[in-house]
């Protein structure tokens, strides 16, 4: 069963002869619960593809279906609701709101929900506990380390319990120890049923994924599944 279906996805910037084709003719299917690493060199179209998968950047050609929903046929409000309900984002540079505390950053996706504040706080505390940061809930982002910021970003991405987690170079700003910690966290989330799609150019990080899609010049060059025996294991 396919959960995410990319059908002839393409994205161009500019018009006519000056047009730059960031990604072209992408066709793939991702089943629920897969852990996919998207790899490629700089300019290969990895982040553009992630923007399309994240319902943040409409493709110029093709269609994207998630859970049977034609994502870019949704109106802007429903598209925002889709992002909130289906997707969690982890960005390379964390993108935490500097004037909100750790727990408030985690609660951000819940700000527009109808849940009461106690319920929002409970869910945020659960998410922080999952990433091992429940003792630093009231600190500001400026008061914690880079690795901790990344974990706050992960907690924020999973607080809504979305079916899909998207990560853009999640270890790009981390040392090897913190990178391994984040990858193991992703494996645990994936093991709990969450579909994880991660853009990376780190071969080590891609070793944690069960499937690696290689992009080159905006096209899908290879798409291979990793044998379970060769996967790096969460400790």
């Amino acid at each position, binding site marked *: 069963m396919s959960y995410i279906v990319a059908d002839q996805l393409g994205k161009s910037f500019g018009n006519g002869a000056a047009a730059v084709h960031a990604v072209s003719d992408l066709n793939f299917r991702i089943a629920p619960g897969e852990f996919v690493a998207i790899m490629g060199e700089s300019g290969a179209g990895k982040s553009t593809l992630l923007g399309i998968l994240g319902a*943040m950047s409409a493709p110029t050609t093709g269609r994207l279906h998630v859970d049977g929903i034609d994502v870019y046929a949704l109106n802007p409000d429903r598209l*925002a609701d889709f992002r*909130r*309900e289906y997707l969690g984002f982890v*960005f390379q540079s964390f993108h*935490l709101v*500097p004037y*909100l505390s750790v727990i408030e950053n985690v609660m951000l996706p819940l700000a*527009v929900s109808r849940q009461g504040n106690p319920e929002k706080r409970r869910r945020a505390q659960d998410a922080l506990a999952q990433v091992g940061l429940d003792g630093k809930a009231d600190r500001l982002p400026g008061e914690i380390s880079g690795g901790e910021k990344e974990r706050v970003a992960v907690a924020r991405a999973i607080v*809504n319990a979305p079916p899909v987690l998207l990560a853009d170079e999640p270890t790009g700003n981390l040392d090897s120890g913190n990178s391994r910690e984040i990858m193991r966290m992703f494996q645990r989330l994936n093991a709990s049923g969450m579909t994880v799609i991660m853009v990376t150019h780190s071969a080590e990080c891609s070793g944690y994924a069960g499937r690696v899609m290689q992009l080159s010049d905006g096209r899908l060059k290879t798409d291979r599944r990793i044998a379970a025996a060769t996967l790096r294991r969460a400790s």
Partner: protein
Amino acid sequence: MTLKLISIRNLMRRKGKAAFILAGLVVGVATVVGIFTFVEATAHDIAHKLEQYGANILIVPKTENLSLSYGGLSLGGVSFDLEEIRESELARLATIPNHRNIAAVGPIVLGVASVESRRMLLAGVDFKAAGILKPWWRVDGRFPQDDEVLLGAEAARALGLETGQGLSVNGRNLVVSGRIEVTGSQDDQLAFLTLATAQQLFAKSGKISMVEVAALCKDCPIEDMVRQIAAVLPGAKVMAIQQVVKSRMEALAQFQKFSYGISAVILFIGGLVVLVTMMGSVRERTEEIGIFRAVGFRRSHIMQVVFLEAGIISALAGVFGYGLGWASAAAALALSGDGHAGTAPFAPELALAAVVLAVVLGLAATAYPAQLASRLDPNEALRAL
């Protein structure tokens, strides 16, 4: 975690920007409140002074018309040699509903007499009331008592009389008590006597030819007073001297137009301050807005956050602006040295209007930046960093 909390936290974090917007709006609102308070108080004072500026209601006997103008004003039909009003009837003026608005009642007896072999118009007046009814009179000498006469400038010149000299009026010897300096009105041609002397000279004891009334009337309906006086003096014709009323209203209207114009300019500038600052704020917050959009905020949620911030600052600006404007007006009135100190009243409706005005202005000026923020593409916003 609510949108309101996000707005408040952002305001607390960007205190400098918030203070700048607050200051811009406070200055705008304070200027408007100050101008309005000052103009209202000044207009009230001007109106009060205008009320002292002579008669504005004329009472004449009901009779067949004879064309006569008085004081350069077209008064319609006046006849002084056919019928008179009884002096005792004037007491009824104290019974009209708006009697508190009557500043002075000036009965006049008019008659033509032979003065030093010349025929001229004489007027018997109540000189106490004349001080209010004709404040523009400048008398060289003093007001007359019985058997004395006060000459208009032209009458004195024509008769060749000076203060202290005697003259014969219908065979009765009177002394010139003084001369009125040139007024440019018909008063220059007249000789003025006390009411009692004139009534004796013209054998009109207890009768009067016409009555001038000064109504204290900034906002009171002068036409209502005319109707009220006509009701208690059914035998008289009561007229409002429209020119005076109109000039008063025009003076006040000019003041108000001026204040509206200045206020509009200041508010426009205040709005620009908010607009420019909020635009800068939105640009600075591209990352945040990208994050909000990425985690599922709708465009309307982004607008709510921006509007909430502007609304909170604007409401505060309304409160502070009213206080500052009121204090400025009170200080300006005190400094004007015209006895206005402490006359700037606390007006709850103006305070409420100031807050509403500040909020409406703040939100209106924020509309474009808020829309701009809501339309930021989250992918572009985050990748541009």
